[in-house]
């Protein structure tokens, strides 16, 4: 009898061990610090906004960051979304170190995998809702393609604004403007959405609609990191991170 063959057969016949596979975080922030010098500071001493914050976001996870004003949550979200460079610490996306990445790489990430929505919708006032949605595709001389246009229309339809694509932001309500901003974030098939107080400037009914929309997007597999004051909205997420004085508590 062939010993090796016997060993292989035995191995194949044996039940597989049930060891859980390690889950690699999509976004990983470790010991992030950030300080600013306030313009009205008397002694010119910097204010430490983040004092060594760490957070991991798993693929498809919805994380809410809550905290009082001045707790550093918006600063932290800006660092996570690469809008702000940290003073120290390490930020990795899919294993790629963003703290040492080149500006071109960061631009590529913002254009591709990352999407940001703000408390104020920040739409370009002279472009229609459809054109604002198409904005990520307008960064070069190459004209927007038919496929991209169809994709933008789909996104507008998803946020319930299919019939308002031709309107300028000034002709839309606050909630509709925020939904256009969400459509703009969706249009490029991002993997992670950063939302900074997305309901902050909306009334409760409109805010609820926007949250419902974010929930649907999350269910579709998009990771969401949201900063909010609203505990009720935060409770809709998978995980709530609380911040105070530049630290996760």
């Amino acid at each position, binding site marked *: 009898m062939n010993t090796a063959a016997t060993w292989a057969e035995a191995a194949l016949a044996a039940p597989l061990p049930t060891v859980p596979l390690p889950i690699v975080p999509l976004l990983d922030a470790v010991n992030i610090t950030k300080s600013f010098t306030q313009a009205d500071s008397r002694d010119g001493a910097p204010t430490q906004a983040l004092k060594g914050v760490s957070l991991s976001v798993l693929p498809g996870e919805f994380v809410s960051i809550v905290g009082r004003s001045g707790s550093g949550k918006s*600063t932290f979200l800006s660092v996570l979304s690469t809008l702000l460079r940290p003073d120290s610490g390490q930020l990795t996306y899919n294993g790629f170190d963003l703290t040492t990445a080149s500006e071109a790489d960061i631009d590529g990430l913002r254009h*591709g995998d990352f999407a940001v929505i703000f408390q104020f919708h920040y739409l370009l006032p002279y472009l229609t809702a459809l054109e604002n949605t198409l904005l990520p595709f*307008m960064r070069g001389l190459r004209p*927007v393609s038919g496929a991209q246009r169809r994709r933008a229309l789909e996104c507008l339809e998803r946020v319930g604004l299919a019939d308002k694509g031709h309107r300028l932001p000034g002709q839309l309500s606050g909630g509709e403007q925020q939904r256009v901003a969400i459509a703009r974030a969706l249009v490029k098939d991002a993997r992670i959405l950063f939302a900074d107080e997305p309901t902050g400037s909306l009334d409760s009914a409109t805010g609820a609609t926007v949250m419902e929309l974010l929930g649907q997007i999350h269910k579709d597999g998009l990771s969401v990191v949201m900063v909010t004051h609203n505990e009720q909205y935060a409770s809709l997420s998978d995980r709530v991170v609380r911040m105070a004085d530049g630290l996760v508590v």
Partner: protein
Amino acid sequence: MNILTIALRNARKKWVRTLLLLLVFTLGVVSIVSLNFVSRVVGEGLEKKLVSFGANILVSPKSEKLTVSYGGFALGDMLFDVSYLDEADTIKRIDGIALRQNISVIAPKLVVMDRVQGMAVAIVGVRFAQEKQLKGYWEVAQGALPGEEPAPAKKAADGMHAASTPTPVPAEAGPMGLVQAAMAPLGQPKDTYNGNGVLVGSAAAAKLNLHVGDTVPLGKTHMLVTGILAPTGSEDDNVLLADLSFVQNAVGRPGKANFLEVAALCSGCPIDDIVNQLGAALPNVEIKTLRNIVEQRMYSVLFVKKLILSVSLVILLTGCSMVGISMLSAVNERKKEIGILRSLGFPRRAVFSIFFAEAASVGLLAGLIGYLAGFAVSFRILQALDMAEGATLPFEPLHLAATAVILALLTSLASLVPAWKAAAIEPSEALVTL
């Protein structure tokens, strides 16, 4: 839709500012274009006027002694030891130089001395057609130029004739008959006139008591006074001017000339080059430049051009400053917009090109509108200056395109700092509330 849509839509959205900017820049371009057009026409007109004041190059045989002069040519030694130029050959050689197109008039002259009523007087043989071109300031006080018809009252009757060789004047002819006899025959071109008429300078007419119809001896023949020149303040006042062929034949020197006056002028015309070329074409001949006149003429033309250039530069600088300031304030106003674009992954160069394209589009449009408007305004200005008649302003599409491109480049240049400032904005600076 692409990145230019952002630039153009913003320009449309801020239409008041865009319009004002466009207006200011267009006005600048209109001023520059119309000033250039008008200066060109005025310069050409000035040149024509300046040319009418006389020659600026003297072509004469090489001579060592000069005592008495006329038009810069020595008369004293001429009577005894004067060499002559072959008129036809000299003109042919001048016609052959490369810069011939810059020569407007060639006026040959033969000067002889004779006695009239016991007084010595210079008789200058000239080609009246060329001489008139050269001396636009000539005015005939009485009678007419030899070869030209006198006033209607003296209109010539049939049977006019003019001799190609000196012809004794019929004794029985009265003063008017004599004048008619000195006129060109019908059908004969005036510039080839070679009759025996003589035009008397105002001072010479007074001194010699000559009137229209009088005869003046020359060698073995006589000349007939057809006209008295009004005072010119020049040497022409003291001489008698007759047809060159007539004088040549009368003194037995057919085809000869003492000197030739040449009028050459154009704005920016290389007068030294013309003189050099003449020197090469006429090796044993003296070429003199009446430099002060030339320099004065050139100075006038260049002064106008420099003035136009200075005004144009000031207008352009003002326009560019306005574009720069306007774009700078636009950058400050649109910080959030820039932040959005950067947060969407627009690289710095894309943000830079949006502002650059906005400025360039203003320049391009201002260049196109300004050139066309400037073209139209030029005609109005020339009409107001009574210079429109005969003025030629050719519309050149290439110039239109060049103006638009240059303006687009200038406005782009003016927007460099604001565009750079826009590109330097960090998204966090524009969007993040810390």
